[in-house]
């Protein structure tokens, strides 16, 4: 086979492999992702669907009972109605009232039930004025 042709074939094979892989990547990313919502959008969300909830923990609302934790969250800008949250397990260090968190879970009877080990607390900002 002449080298020119060989190169072309090689290129086509490589490119189609790349396209295939990319397609797989794109497809799975749309199916594997969970919708990001703020608390006010979840107040009357349908049960049985997983969401990434991003909100701000209401100060003074954190109640710990043994291993389980109850608190309320509001939208990140502090507005809107608050949503009760149930979570069990240990929480990251920065977790406390007034902090922003991201939690994956479902809404059950008006309560957002978080999956264990999915709670991330945003690092207290380095680049905003400290209001925590």
């Amino acid at each position: 086979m002449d080298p020119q042709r060989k190169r072309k074939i090689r290129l086509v094979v490589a490119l189609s492999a790349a396209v295939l892989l990319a397609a797989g990547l794109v497809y799975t990313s749309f199916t594997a992702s969970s919708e990001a919502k703020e608390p006010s959008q979840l107040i009357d969300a349908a049960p049985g669907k997983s969401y990434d909830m991003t909100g701000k923990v209401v100060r003074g609302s954190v109640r710990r009972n043994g291993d389980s934790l109850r608190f309320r969250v509001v939208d990140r800008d502090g507005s809107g109605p608050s949503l009760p949250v149930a979570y069990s397990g240990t929480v990251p260090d920065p977790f406390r009232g007034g902090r922003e968190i991201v939690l994956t879970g479902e809404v059950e009877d008006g309560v957002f039930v978080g999956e264990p080990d999915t709670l991330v607390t945003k690092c207290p900002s380095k680049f905003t004025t400290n209001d925590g």
Partner: protein
Amino acid sequence: MTASLGSAALALAFATTVFAAAAALAGRNGDERWLLASRRAVYGACGLLTLCVVLIEAAFLGDDFSFHIVEQHSSIETPTFYKLAAMWSSQEGSLLLWAWVLSIASSLALYATRNRLREIVPYATAVMAGVASFFTGLMLFAGGVNPFATLDPAPADGVGLNPLLQHPSMMIHPPMLYSGYVAFTIPFAFAIGALVARRLDASWIRATRRFALIAWAFLGFGLLLGARWSYTELGWGGYWAWDPVENAALMPWLIGTAFLHSIMVQEKRGMLKVWNACLIVATFSLALLGTFLVRSGVLQSIHAFGDSTVGPYILGLIGVVLIGSTALIVSRLDDLRSPKRIDSLASREAVFVVNNLLLVGLCATIFWGTFFPLISELFTGTKSSLAAPWFDRYTTPLAILLVLFTGIGPLLAWRRVSWATAKRVFVVPAAAAAALALVLVLFTDAAQEPWALALFVFAGFSLVGLAQELWRGAAARRSLSGGSMPAALVAVVSRNRRRYGGYIVHAGVAVLLIGIAASSSFQTKRDVELRPGGSATIDGRAVTYVRPTVAADPQKLTFGAVLAVRQGSGSYVLRPSRRFYRPTGGGAGTIASFFEGEATSEVGLRAGAGSDLWVAPQPDIAAVQRRARAADRGFRACVSGAPGTPAQCRAVSRLMRAAAANPALRPIALRQIEALQAATAERIAHSFLAEDAPVTFRVIVNPLVTWMWIGGLIALAGALIALWPARRGRRLPAGDLELEALKEAKYREIRDAELDHAAGKLSDEDFALLDAELRKEAVEILDLGNGAANGHREVVERPTEPV
């Protein structure tokens, strides 16, 4: 006063960088005076920015709270060590750090090339000075980010540095990352210079290779430190979370890795020129993107850096860089074409191309995942994000292939390898890998995690291959000059630093990936609730909660636990704790606030070569908090001085009444009340000792995780070896430097080939062919130097030094 001096220095630095860029462009046709002026202006800007940094640091050390930056990020109580580091925990301070490091790197680069690359340097200077003026200008004009902003009147104390950031690695993690980001500016600037000047040989690469390697090492070390900080300080026990800000630092590192490999192909073979130009543009853009991401609030990150004024400007710069560079590369496509082709798939350059594709693929995957919230919003209208499992699924196979190629690459010689030779060098590593696979499957449960098993086997292949390389190199050296094997090993490494430094980096990366694979696939994690005296067994370790401890100091209240661990026949004690930082910023708060402030975990860690035991406690302090609230109620009753106030309260209420009448007494009264509250909080904290309260311990057994840190350090050491300058030969007149560098590079290639031949990587026929080719190329270079006109030909002698 110092603030106005600093502002003036900053403004002057801005003007100087603008001048440097303009002067460099004015001298683009080789006007010596303009070039000298621009170089000196860059040195000057470096001096001015150094002054700015010194002034800011002095303000931090001297508790000058009239500086807004000091007031926001430090306090009297902040330990001195962290006062020094507080500068870069602020937005404006980190921008200053960017500009300062850039000015240092630019000065070094211009000093190193002061007599070289006449056509390229003016444009490169313009790019470097342009970027520097962008960042200094940002501080001056963007609003709200001037590090010399002041407060009038100056407050008595500052807010303090967030306790989470008070960790030794936070002192060096950000400057490392920034230095990495910033140093990539240098190869980028010279690449642009080369493109504009159409000097598209490898001269810009030779001049800036070291900077690229330094940038790469800094960025990698910064990533490692960040992971270490997360592991030991954040109390969740992980070191990587695929968070956007982490990804933002990883992406330029990956592309930078690809760049460092593919520039070797351009240096040696004159190929991949377009690819290299694209890679360095991508690396620099990604570094800017990282700088942008932490400041924009565009993506949800656990590093909740707020929206700020500078985001759009940086985005604008990225746009300019991408559009400008793309246009430039397209306009130079004809000059960038290389007539050469890769000779064989069994050659090092072919493996480099594969490794480049893998690295770029890895980066593209991470990029897609990181920006998926924006992509999905664009297409579906809702912001959706991808979690760690998605990233793991795609990056794992790519990482496994990469670790395989870190082993294959070094085994192959440049240009071509006959299959017979290839087989010979692959036999030992392949056999070792097969044996390893057998052992792992038979004697461990590694087979339950096929991906991890594959990684272990491939990493084993690579490590044995690298060891074989070192061994054969040393043996070849020894057969030439005798001596002992260790001496020969040291000699061959120190004479071929780039080559063996690179191999050591590969070994480090393989070890690091083993640590990651083992600790993420075979980790045991449990949350156990224990009361004093209780115990639990986790993965063969009997953990007993012996007793609680409480400690108080001016900064914090610490609730600790003494844990006795029995493991096999040995036993040891761990003392993890949870710290509650006191409210800062002055003013009397409540006693309850002592238990509601910033809290951090001090992890109990027993590191070992086999596995780590990691424990973080979460004490149930509900009862303590109840007591604190009750104390607050009592305190308020005291202060109000209502009828029936208990006797011990009278002094307080008298003090409060006196202060109300006489404002001069207020600060004294406040201090006394604060002291009283602190003492009460400490007493209440100590009540925890007697109450037999439960503590939730997160216990993690992490196999082989220590090797992740060791691997990182090995890689860093390898990078340092590769960077270490070779002994300089004789000095040459300025004009010949470039030619000399070219000659030097060709000689090195000849030496490399001889070493490969001696080490058995090249068969006799392959070597004869290659050697003839290289010598012909060397003669061409010499002809260039001697002026082909007089027809004089120098004989290519043996390279100056033996292998």
